[in-house]
């Protein structure tokens, strides 16, 4: 399947099914409404095959280039049918599970994720381990018939809706740092797991604290080697900055386009508009090249930190401009559309925080790309 054929077919299918695929709620919707809608979109896209292209056949895919996945997310997001923040999770978690997990595990669970039957969450950050991820302390000890996990995770997006968690745990000594970390694939309904949703700055319960109290996890649910989890985690990070970022670019284009259409005359300075459009173009040109490198089979790595810094700058510039041009709605509006703009504005503030802060990305660029030597 080549991109042009896929694009033509998908665009036509989306046009024909737009009513079914459009969110039934106006604006942001409740978390449950958003999850239900995304499940439906995923199911329809999977049943028709569109969401299976670009994924290996072993995990329920139809094969083909990863470019097809980049285009599907773009097509859905640019039509306002999905929120990429929700939609792109499989792009982040599934590739690493396919690469590192027992093939039987990947074959069993990845299709459930792609078809919208279940959600996965990413158990990385902890109260004491944010940027310094290798210091994490949520511990797994070896029991007779499996791991026992005790500890806490935080900022875990969609944890309360997730059936599985890709969880980083400490299996070595605390001093072993990155050498003593293991990745586990955990069922979220296992006794001993408690989820406490956290309200974000715009009030939605999008992420959560997750507590593990002596939670049993079978040894077969180890992803990669015991104590080899750091390599798996490091493999996930570039995936956080490739296809999923292209999807975000699509929604930013849509937001910028709507702003240009709706901002009252004279409310925006031409220079600010031009510069913002250029930040967006710079990000999209860079991310587009990354999509093609990924599709050609190249392993992507630290250079995607540049993509992330460009995205965060572009996203914040676009939504700063929205705040300026549509201040009436953002500041005073109580309707669903105003609430959506506000949520988008607030979410843009997180762009330089989630998935490795802008400062961490710059550290990576300095160390790995500019070869400036150690920083301490």
């Amino acid at each position, binding site marked *: 399947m080549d*991109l042009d054929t896929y694009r033509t077919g998908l665009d036509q299918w989306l046009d024909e099914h737009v009513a079914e695929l459009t969110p039934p709620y106006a604006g942001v919707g409740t978390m449950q409404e958003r999850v239900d809608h995304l499940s439906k979109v995923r199911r329809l896209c999977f049943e028709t095959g569109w969401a299976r292209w670009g994924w290996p056949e072993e995990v329920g895919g139809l094969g083909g280039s990863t470019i097809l996945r980049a285009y599907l997310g773009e097509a859905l997001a640019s039509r306002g049918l999905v929120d990429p923040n929700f939609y792109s999770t499989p792009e982040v978690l599934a590739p690493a599970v396919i690469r590192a997990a027992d093939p039987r595990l990947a074959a069993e669970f990845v299709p459930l994720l792609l078809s919208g039957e279940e959600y996965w969450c990413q158990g990385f950050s902890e109260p004491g381990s944010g940027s310094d991820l290798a210091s994490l302390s949520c511990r797994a000890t070896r029991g007779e018939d499996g791991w026992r996990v005790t500890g806490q995770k935080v900022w875990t997006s969609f944890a309360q809706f997730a059936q599985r968690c890709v969880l980083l745990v400490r299996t070595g000594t605390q001093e072993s740092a990155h050498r003593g970390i293991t990745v586990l694939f955990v069922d979220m309904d296992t006794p001993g797991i408690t989820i406490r949703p956290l309200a974000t700055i715009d009030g939605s319960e999008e992420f959560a604290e997750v507590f593990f109290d002596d939670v049993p996890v079978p040894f077969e649910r180890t992803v990669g080697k015991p104590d080899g989890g750091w390599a798996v985690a490091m493999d996930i990070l570039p995936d956080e900055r490739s296809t999923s970022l292209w999807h975000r670019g699509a929604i930013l284009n849509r937001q910028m386009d709507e702003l240009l259409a709706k901002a009252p005359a004279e409310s925006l300075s031409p220079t600010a508009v*031009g510069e913002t459009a250029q930040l967006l173009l*710079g*990000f999209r040109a860079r991310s587009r090249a990354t999509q093609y490198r990924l599709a050609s089979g190249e392993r992507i790595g630290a250079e995607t930190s540049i993509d992330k810094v*460009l995205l965060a700058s572009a996203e914040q510039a676009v939504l700063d401009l929205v705040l300026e041009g549509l201040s009436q709605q953002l500041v005073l509006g109580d309707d669903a559309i105003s609430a959506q703009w506000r949520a988008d504005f607030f979410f843009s503030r997180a762009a330089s925080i989630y998935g490795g802060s802008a400062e961490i990305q710059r*550290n990576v660029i300095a160390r790995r790309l500019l070869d400036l030597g150690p920083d301490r």
Partner: protein
Amino acid sequence: MMEESDLELFAQSLRQAIDRHKGENLDAALAEIGWFDALATDAQTAIAALFPILGTANASSTALEGVLAVRLNASSGPGRVVLPALDGWEPPGVRDGDLLTVRGLLMGPVDDGEVLVIVANGADGGAAAAAVSSSLLNFRTVGGMDPAARLMEVTGELPCPELSSVEQDTWEQAIALGRLAIGYQIVGAARAMLELARDHALNRVQFGQPIARFQALRHRLAETLVAIEGAEAVLEAGVANTTPFLAANAKAIAGRAGRTACRHCQQVLAGIGYTSEHEFHRYMKRTIVLDSILGSTARLTHDIGAQLLSVGHLPESLPL
């Protein structure tokens, strides 16, 4: 299209030519290597191969005029084309009845009697090109910010010579290619500045350690690389699909990246970057000069923003 391996060989001979020759001799060497032929066959590839190296070497050349010449079908060799006046992109000539008024720039000295192509707008709105002997024009060797850039200011008022009409589209395409060329040259200069600053940061010791260990400096250099890579990605997109919109944006983005490199690298270089003894100043001055040719970052950005506001829509660009 050149094969990857041929392209690498081509780039290598371009680098050698730039290392060995300066000014007119460099232009002659580029002609001998076949760069102008390559430009006529595949302008985008030729531009992307030469201009980054020109920037990194801080070399001066009339190659930019050749880029416009090739789109204006004015020459198959190192043609000389009068560029728009500083900061602008309107044709450098204005036709009024029988009179042709010229105000523009050249990227290097002119021989006596050398023929220059001048594109002029007429009162009827259409553009036309004329071949004019340099003996009919006035030239001023520009010192200004960067004498090593070898700019010439061209002015003149002469009886209108024979004109051949130029489609509006053709002029826009010529400017678009020229903008890609300058963008690449600025990116080359920015990479050179980054390398100078990186080298300094690794070798300069304060508080008992290389200053490259300090996060404040590391982040400045990281920010510079981000700006350069973003600009280069847009330039590459412009090479793959040379629309006036993409090329104008690419030049503005490259110009901004150049200024970002100037700001951060000079701060990292500190005192030595404020001297004429260190190489940095050449790149900084060249970046500022290049930014102001065929539309500065500030003017292009304002212009693009105004266009977007007037159409009320973000044009589709960069599809997968």
